[in-house]
Structure formats: structure tokens, C-alpha cells
């Protein structure tokens, strides 16, 4: 996967992420920690800005579903997984670095 941040727009894989009518995002957290609250807030703001009306956020509290940590190979929290458009990319941390989140979501061209 290319790591260059600003040039990805011109890459052939670019058109695909555009298509989905709805973005499905899953945020893994471990309880209501400041970090997880922060991450959710950051994500919410970003989605409102960029994907208004066409996104879904699912929050998974691993404390309640510990088996999912194993099943989904979660090590670090918070972890944001992009279910649709399907991507292997994972975004970890409290999502405070918006640029990097956009890179992770392959949406950075707009910024």
C-alpha cells in the first residue's frame, strides 16, 4: 500500500473508496476512558465534516465483548476499523491527528 500521503489521490485504487453510499466504521474501545471518549468525539466531528449523512459508527466496548478483541485482532485501543469501503487499514489512537486519520480513511485529498 502506498505510504505517500498527498499523492494517493492519483493512484488507481482511488476511485473505489468513493463509491459506497454508506461508510461503516467500527471503533473498538475498552470502557469509557478519556481516551475512548476523545476518540469517539474526534471521529464524530470528522465524519460530520466529510461524510455527513452517509456514515455509521459502531462502537465496540471490548470489556463487554472480550472475545472480539481476539477475533478481530485488536491489540491497541482505541482502534478504528473501516468495514465499508472494505479496508485492511486500521487506525489506532485517539484520532486527534486529523491528517493521519484522513490518510487512514483514504480521504485526505479533501484536506
Amino acid at each position, binding site marked *: 500500500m502506498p505510504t505517500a500521503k498527498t499523492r494517493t489521490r492519483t493512484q488507481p485504487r482511488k476511485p473505489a473508496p468513493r463509491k459506497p453510499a454508506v461508510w461503516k466504521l467500527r471503533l473498538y474501545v*475498552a470502557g469509557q476512558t478519556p481516551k475512548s471518549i476523545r476518540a469517539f468525539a474526534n471521529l464524530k466531528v470528522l465524519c460530520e465534516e466529510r461524510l455527513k449523512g452517509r456514515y455509521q459508527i459502531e462502537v465496540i466496548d471490548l470489556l463487554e465483548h472480550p472475545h472480539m478483541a481476539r477475533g478481530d485482532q485488536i491489540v491497541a485501543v482505541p482502534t478504528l476499523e473501516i468495514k465499508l469501503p472494505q479496508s485492511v487499514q486500521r487506525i489506532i489512537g485517539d484520532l486527534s491527528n486529523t491528517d493521519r486519520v484522513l490518510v487512514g480513511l483514504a480521504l485526505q485529498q479533501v484536506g
Partner: protein
Amino acid sequence: MTQQKKARRPSSKTLPKALTGIQGLDEITGGGLPSGRPTLVSGGAGAGKTMFGLEFLVRGATQYGEPGVFMSFEETIPDLTKNAASLGFDLGRLVAEKKLFLDHVAISRHEIEETGEYDLDGLFIRIADAVKRVGARRVVLDTIEALFGELPNPGILRAEIRRLFDWLKQQGLTTIITAERDRPDKLTRHGIEEFVSDCVIVLDHRIREEISTRRLRVVKYRGSTHGTNEYPFLIDEHGISVLPISSLGLDHTAPAERISTGIDRLDGMMGGKGFYRGSSILMSGTSGTGKTSVAAHFVDAACRRGERCLYFAIEESPRQVVRNMRSIGIDLEPWVRKGLLQFHAARPTYGGIEEVLLLTHKHISSFQPSVVVVDPITTLLMVSTLNEVRSMLTRLVDFLKTQEITAIFTSLTAAGGDLEANEADVSSLMDTWLLLKTIEVGGERNRALYVLKSRGMEHSNQIREFVLTNDGLRLLDVYLGPEGVLTGAARMSQEGREKAAGTFRRQQLEGRGRELDRKRQIFEARMTMLRAEFEVEEEIIQQSISESKLLDAELLQDRGQMVRSREADTSAYKKVGSAPAARKR
């Protein structure tokens, strides 16, 4: 497994320990790893860290009722299961029985975008969940440092790993953390050893002179004494075995029981009772002196007593030994079939001396023999230095003594070498030293044997000749000639001479007896003759006496008549006497 009962319970009262069940390790650590605390196991690639962790969990689950969790950061679960199978562990079964939980932590840095502060709660939750599922008491993290390669921000990672260790400690989980050691001056690549202050074990896999040796060292064990040497260890189909070099010490018991050597007259040379049980016997000699034969006698005798024997044939194949011994009338095969005798043939060149020692240990531990034969120990010198062989034998002898196993070590002396000097290095370890040699005299070689030393018992100081017959080994009578013990033809001729001399003496004796008889007869004959002569003389004398008396009487009568007729002076005649006159008549 067999070693487990020997693993000493914690020596320290303050520090609880968890037995690892790894053969030998619990001896070195005086009872295992610190219970409820993390232990760092560090080593280079292929040093055996994963195997170490796996065995720790498997033994815990199967032997000590402590289920375990294995968190693998590198190998996948199918790979792990396959590798464990090579140690004889069935992970699948343990997982099914809920005694073991395996989790593979797979993350790839290419798929990770770090966007801010994170923690490892995901991992914590996974571990906690796994621990809860099987009720684990033990955890292995193999190799947690892999996270440094996959997750950004080492600062966070270090803090999180530290938190993880604290958490594990809090949970009272006995944990092994493995770490890659890529530089000799550092224990771990990312310095996580500073979080593990209780116990650090270093594994090492080195190759010297084309022979690979694995070694283990307890670098640190807070609050506990531990062996500090480098201990060789082995990974084979029964797991890991570590060999304590010197922890056994010299506190073994010394049984007073004596056991036969299997050769009556050899017993006779040792106070009539043979070896002490549990003693170590060195039997050295040049090739073809009959070392194996003596050993075979001993083995045969032990099997007859119903004891188990373990025979390490280092130069001959077991079949060869059995066949050869049959030629001197010892059939070992029935004992093999009965399971009393076990042969192990291995050339030391195959795995190096430490491996030989470890294998020896393992076989002894699993077979539990009361007699062990190592034939010969000198081959070990081919793969190692004298020092190493000596150190290995010291350990082996110590080990055998603690088990009260009687052991015979044969040693091949180079022809022409000084018999007694060559083995001087190992001989001090041995309780009894039998020397077998050939005596070359009068154009022939004959076998002889003597007891060079035998601690704690009277023993013969004679050199004894022996022959190998169809009916076993036979010690012959001693013949001392002017130049020492006589053997072979010289002995036979001496035997002959002694026989001849004996006959001569017997004849002489008989002759003297006869002479005495003869003399007695002569004497008696003479006596008879003398008596006869005497009787004859006596008769003559008696006769003459009575004649004289008669004559006197007649004379007197005649004279009276004459006096009367002549009327002569009678008194004068009476004075003159009678004889001449009588004769005249």
C-alpha cells in the same frame, strides 16, 4: 516426567516458586521460577525460547494442575502446534481439555495508522479473557518485543509493556516473557529486562568445532540462590532437559551393601563380596583385554538378581555385544527380552559430549536401572577435551551415586601407553579401579587382571591371570615366578614343574616309610636271633653249672672215702680245695 519427583521443593521460605517441570531446571533454580511473577527468558534466534515457554505451560497444565495461556506474537497457532508436537506435546488436546489457551497476536505495521495516544488495553483484555477461560496460573508472552516492530511510538509501548507486567504480577500469574537477544551486551533488543526484576534466564545456542551445544544460564534470581553456571541443555522429542553441572554435590548416601561382580574369584579378590552398591568402577585396559567380558558378567549377574541394567554401547552395536558375549557363554538376550537389560548405542560424534551426557541422564531417569555400563568412555575424548570429559563424568558419577546406581566405565588405553597414567584424571572419581592388561612373555600374550584400588574394602593386591572360556571368564591360580606373576605357557610349565616336584616328594616320603618298615623288620629279626642265641647260651651255662655241682659232690664223696681208707689228716685236704684234683680225675 520421571524427574519430577526429584525436583526439590522451594529452598527459600519467603519466595514461593512454581515448578517448571523442565528436567533439571528446577534443581538449578531450587524449585522453579518465581511464582506469580514474571521471568524473562532471553536468547538469540533458535535458542529454544518458544520451546521453553511451551514446555513450562504444558508441564504446568499436565503435572501441576496449573492451566496456562500462550500469547504468541510471532508464530501462528498451527505452527506452534506443529512445533510442540516435535517435543511430544499435544497442544490440541490440552486446548480441548481447557488446560491451555493459545492466542496468536497478529498485527502488521503496514496496516496501522497511528493518530494519537493509544494503549494496549486490547491486548490486556485478550489476555485477561484467555486467563479467565481456562483459569490460568501461567502465562507465556512470546515474544512481546515483536510489538515494537509493529506498533509506532516506542515510548507508549514501553510504558504499556511495563503496565502489562505489573498487571500480570498483580494477577499473581507466573509469567514467562521471551525476548530476542541480538547483541551479547544486551539482554533484550528494547531493554524490557528493566521491567522484569525477579528472574532472568538466558538461553544460548552455539556451535563449537562443528558441534552445537545449547546452554542455559540463570543470570538473575532475586531473593533466591541459584546455580550460576552455564548449563547445557537439550531439546528432543521429550522436551527440554537441563543438566545441572555441580548442584548435586557430594551428599549422596553410601550404601554398605555389596553386590557380586558375577565372577566368583573376582569377588574373592575384593573381600569375597564384590563391589559396593552405588559405587563407580573404572575398568581400563588395552584393546582385547576383556573389558566388555567382565562388564557382561556383571550385567548378567545383576539381571539374575532381577535388577535392571542399562548398557551404553558406544563402540559396538548392541547385537554385536550380545553375539560376542554368547561366545563366552553369557547369553544376554533373554534379559533384553525380559526388559531387564536395555542397550543404547550412540556414537558421541553425533551430538557432542553434552548431548551424550543428557541422553545418558534421560535414559537412566526413564529406565531407572540399578546397574549402568558405559563402554567405553574413552571414545568421548574423540569429540571433546579431557577437561570436558572429566567434567561430564564427574556429573554423571554424581548423578549415578545419588540414584545408588552401580556403574562400570570401561576405558580403552592406547597400546604401549602407561596404563595407570592415562586415566589418572578420571580415576579419582572412581571407587574401584580394575586394570586389565596383557602380559607378554615367552612369545605369547596372556590376559591378567588386578584391583588397582577399591575404596573402603580389603582387596587382593595380586595380579591374576584369566582366560575367556566357552563358559565365561575364569580367573586362574596365581603362579609367581622370579619375574612376577607367571602366565600362559610359563604358568603351565610352572604348574608342571610343581606337579613333578610334588610327585617326587611324595615318592620320597613313601620311600622313607618303607625304609622305616624294613629297619623295623630287621631290628625285630635281630632281636629274635639274639634271644635265640641267648637262650642257647643260657642253656649251656645252666648245664655246666649243674654238672659242676654234681662233680663237686662226687669229688667230696671220693675224698671222704680216700681219707677213710688212708686215715689221713682230713683238715689239710679240705684246705687245698678240690678242682685241680677233681679235674685230674
